[in-house]
């Protein structure tokens, strides 16, 4: 901070050249100005100068103090102090280098981060379900290997919600890859009567296979009692799986037409809704449900809806950006920041990276741009600088990390 001090004379010189009057007149004017202010203050008035500020007198009470040398108490007399309150304009002008800073609520910091991650919340259930599903699968395979005790109906009634929930999860997670990976396979196979979507058949056949051994087990006498709840739970899940499998696929085994597949999808998506409502603590999984409900109507539209925007945005991100058009030109002065320019023209400060990219040649260091540099603000695809889209922000931050080392 340069603490340069300038006197009345220097101000008068500047003033004279600016207002094209003689230096003497300028000095005179300033003296008269402050004399007038002084007189008004003496008269007990406050003085307001437009765009500059307000002068007023403030009475400072007499106070006790101690003489440092002698330790004897003295009284400092009360006095009038001239209080200067800068005008809003002057205040803002002076504070411009820090104007972009906002008070940060430190304790509210955590919820804020949570807000940012909310966009990812819809994905979280998937991950959780995936983990659970793989755990359950492991369990089932172990069960099949060991052939444990079979549990009777009462036990099943004891824990239906959990069991159901997990069972639905099982279905859902198995269903999920179908929607994502093989939309084409399904649409192709749809017209044909015989072939059915892969994973569905897997679950069915798997449950079919499961059924035989476990049915045998049912007949068998429960040999050794294990009080391991985990096994019991897993067995119950298997039983319910079989029941559902039977319920869904038993009668028309030979003719699995489109309709059954569709009804299957229906039920599965319904189940998904329920599961979501159970598992998400988040009060508004609306966006998630929407995306899930869409598949009911047609698988094709689903694959389009889900994948197309994502891909186009990704392509947009990946293509090297060129800036043929410019919407504005800004000259860097004291206190100018690329982030501020970005906020002004794009509505979000994170998108400054694009301005930097467009002006890379003139800016050796984005943190320290020489005064007077001409910055051209490029015209950017509005999809790329969509402040409401967290992906755009994330992309900009990635670039930010790239440029600011």
């Amino acid at each position: 901070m340069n603490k340069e001090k300038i006197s009345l004379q220097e101000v008068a010189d500047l003033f004279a050249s600016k207002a094209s009057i003689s230096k003497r007149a300028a000095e005179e004017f300033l003296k008269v100005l402050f004399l007038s202010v002084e007189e008004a203050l003496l008269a007990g008035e406050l003085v307001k100068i437009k765009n500059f500020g307000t002068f007023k007198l403030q009475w400072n009470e007499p106070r006790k103090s101690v003489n440092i040398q002698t330790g004897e108490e003295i009284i400092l007399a009360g006095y009038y102090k001239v209080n200067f309150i800068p005008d809003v304009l002057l205040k803002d002008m002076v504070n411009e280098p820090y104007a972009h800073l906002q008070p940060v609520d430190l304790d509210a910091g955590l919820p804020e981060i949570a807000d940012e991650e909310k966009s990812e919340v819809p994905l979280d259930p998937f991950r959780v379900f995936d983990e659970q599903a793989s755990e359950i699968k492991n369990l089932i395979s172990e069960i099949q290997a060991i052939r444990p005790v079979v549990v009777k109906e009462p036990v099943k009634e004891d824990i239906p919600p959990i069991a159901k929930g997990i069972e639905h999860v099982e279905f859902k997670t198995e269903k999920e890859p179908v929607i994502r990976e093989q939309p084409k396979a399904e649409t192709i196979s749809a017209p044909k009567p015989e072939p059915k979507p892969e994973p569905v058949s897997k679950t069915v056949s798997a449950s079919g296979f499961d059924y035989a051994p476990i049915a045998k087990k049912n007949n068998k006498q429960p040999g050794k009692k294990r009080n391991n709840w985990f096994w019991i739970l897993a067995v119950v899940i298997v039983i319910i799986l079989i029941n559902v499998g039977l319920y869904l696929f038993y009668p028309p085994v030979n003719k699995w037409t489109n309709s059954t597949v569709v009804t299957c999808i229906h039920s599965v998506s319904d189940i998904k809704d329920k599961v979501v409502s159970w598992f998400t603590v988040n009060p508004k999984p609306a966006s998630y449900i929407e995306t899930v409900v869409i598949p009911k109507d047609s698988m094709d539209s689903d694959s389009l809806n889900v994948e197309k925007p994502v891909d186009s945005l990704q392509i947009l991100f990946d293509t090297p950006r060129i800036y043929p058009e410019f919407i504005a030109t800004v000259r860097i002065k004291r206190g100018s920041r690329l982030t501020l320019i970005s906020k002004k023209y794009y509505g979000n400060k994170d998108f400054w990276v694009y301005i930097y990219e467009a002006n890379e040649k003139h800016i050796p260091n984005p943190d320290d741009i020489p005064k007077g540099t001409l910055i051209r603000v490029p015209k950017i695809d509005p999809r790329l600088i969509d402040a409401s889209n967290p992906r755009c922000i994330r992309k900009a931050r990635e670039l930010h990390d790239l440029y600011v080392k």
Partner: protein
Amino acid sequence: MNHKELIATMATKMNAPRSAVSDLLDTAVKILNEQLVEEKTIGFQSFGNFEVRKKEERLSVHPSTHVRTLIPPKLVVSFKQSNILKDKFKDIPHHE
């Protein structure tokens, strides 16, 4: 005393038309502001110093909610009267 009244008193003192005084005052204020924006200290011997000070960032705690807030640094204009001016006000009797 507001802006207009100030111009009026100055005009009578300088024997100049108000419009001219008003223009000059605007220019003067503009120059003072510019100097302050450049973080220069303006000193008028008989009046006082205008100075830009940096208030460092600080942590404030709301007394009742205990919410901690980080207040960013800022630049403010401060004015300190000169001793000459202070002495002049000694003569004003203090009521209350």
